[in-house]
């Protein structure tokens, strides 16, 4: 009995002592895909460290292979700022994660596409009916697939949806185990240049392919100036890529599994402007309502409350 009381008291003490205070380290989460171009420039050139070390703050960078593991790390309280697709960001928010969209990391309608094996007879999305189509459930490409099917008056029920990891979709396309797959960069350019696949339809005209810059509410509210610094550096990275594409490709290819030549093609497809425009918010709302109707999320997410434009405005990023 005494031990039980002791344990409970101990837990209460721990609860009361949860540390709150100024950040000594800024923890940044990222994924090794060219979709997030400027962040690799920032990291490799050490711009963030230069700014933060002046304030005696260190930077910790963590790579994740996909949105869900990055979400898990956020949930465990291990990250402060991160970049990811809009879909995983909304999923986490729907699950109760207290984050805010503080900027846009990239948009690029041609960075994601529904593709078929090169040898395939399928020429238009209408022919996908009854076929085996692979997708990463809960990714932003999932929405693209829905839109592509919608465009030819088909739904998920009209095709055989196969849930695979991104890498496995690549393998399945090469082996011909599936009839079509929904993928994004860098796999898209890689397989195209290898001659394995053909693009059936990408996001052009139907989905902007929005990727976001996230920050936890706790970190952002306590360190607004750091968020502003981050956004300003992101714009700097964007400008660097526009001005020196070859050099940028060389730098980014170190972190991303693509050759500089392939990267040049990819970078040309994307817009790395971090400012939050009205149509960006519209895109997020469209993604959110799709996921709710597809049963991927249960709780509704108020996008207007999710997006926090103040830091960008204060940083002059518009």
């Amino acid at each position, binding site marked *: 009995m005494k031990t039980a009381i002791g344990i409970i008291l101990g837990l209460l003490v721990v609860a009361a002592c949860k540390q709150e205070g100024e950040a000594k380290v800024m923890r940044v989460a990222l994924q090794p895909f060219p979709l997030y171009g400027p962040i690799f420039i920032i990291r490799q050139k050490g711009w963030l460290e230069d700014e933060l070390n002046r304030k005696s703050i260190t930077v910790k960078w963590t790579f994740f292979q996909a949105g869900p593991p990055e979400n898990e790390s956020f949930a465990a309280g291990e990250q402060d700022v991160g970049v990811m697709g809009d879909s995983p960001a909304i999923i986490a928010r729907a*699950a109760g994660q207290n984050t805010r969209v503080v900027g846009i990391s990239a948009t690029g309608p041609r960075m994601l596409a529904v593709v078929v094996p090169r040898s395939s007879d399928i020429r238009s999305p209408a022919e996908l009916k009854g076929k085996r189509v*692979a997708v990463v459930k809960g990714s932003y490409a999932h929405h693209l697939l829905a839109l592509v099917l919608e465009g030819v008056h088909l739904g998920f029920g009209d095709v055989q949806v196969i849930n695979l990891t991104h890498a496995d979709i690549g393998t399945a396309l090469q*082996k011909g185990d599936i009839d079509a797959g929904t993928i994004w960069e860098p796999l898209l350019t890689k397989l195209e240049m290898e001659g394995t696949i053909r693009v059936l339809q990408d996001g052009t005209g139907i989905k902007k392919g929005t990727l976001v810059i996230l920050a936890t509410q706790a970190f952002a509210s306590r360190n607004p100036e750091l968020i502003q610094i981050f956004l300003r550096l992101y714009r700097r990275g964007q400008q660097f890529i526009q001005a020196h594409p070859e050099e940028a490709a060389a730098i980014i290819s170190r972190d991303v599994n693509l050759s500089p030549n392939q990267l040049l093609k990819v970078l040309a497809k994307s817009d790395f402007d971090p400012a939050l425009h009205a149509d960006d918010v519209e895109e997020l709302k469209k993604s959110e309502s799709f996921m709710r109707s597809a049963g991927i999320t249960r709780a509704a997410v108020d996008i207007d409350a999710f997006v926090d434009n103040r830091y960008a405005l204060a940083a002059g990023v518009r």
Partner: protein
Amino acid sequence: MLSSTIVTRWLQAFGSSRAEGNASKRAHFALAAGRRALHYASLPIAALCLWQLTSVLDLVPAVAMPSPAQVARAFLELVRTGELLRHVAMSLARVLEGTAAAAALGIGLGIGVGLSRRLERATDLMLELLRPIPPIAWIPLAILWFGIGELSKLFIIFLGAFFPIVMNVISGIRQTEHKFVEVARILEVPRARFIRHVIVPGALPVIMSSLRLGLGIAWMCVVAAELIAASSGVGYLIMDARQLSRPDVVLAGMITIGVVGKAMDVALKRLERRVVEWKVIYQGE
């Protein structure tokens, strides 16, 4: 402790409110059974209380660790929609199929290797090299060889069950007690009869327990197997919930795996006891 005293008093009161004699004996039995049940349940109940406490005190954010109530709700939702049953049935089917294949090959090979020194020398290195490789590491190869259909999943499950079965059968055959070998020599039992009537029945307890072990490990592999393009099954349920940031469903799935695994183990133990009723095994105090 406090709770067991309360239960004891209550059961005693229950017992004494009826006629003496048989009734008190029944009460005694109920008492003992009740106390035993309490022993089994004490640790899980304590863990549950601690878990609920950490949620209530918000020591861990709900997004990272849902409360028992949330998990219970997720669980009930899955049961209500019939989803849980569908997933469990799918996984069970896969695991039973994979284990059956592993049993057929494992027992056959195990008996062969146990009996033949030559076969042992031929297969030993291969088995020892392959055994430590966890089934999950075989997934890329499984997809390349067998595609993303059922076969690759069955392959993973097969691997999980095969090695424990074959290794245990080999040692079970080897352990045929020397004393029986001597009796067989005196009785001039020819080799075939010796194998069929002495070695194999003697190894039957080990074979049965190796099956139980193999099935248990195969069940653990079901999550790994269903990473390969599954659209149903408890492993799929968990992975899907993970992608959708639903840790409450993940936990509900994990608990389901634990419960079903335990149920299968109990069932197999009962079967074991019936098949090898002649073997008296130490039960513990």
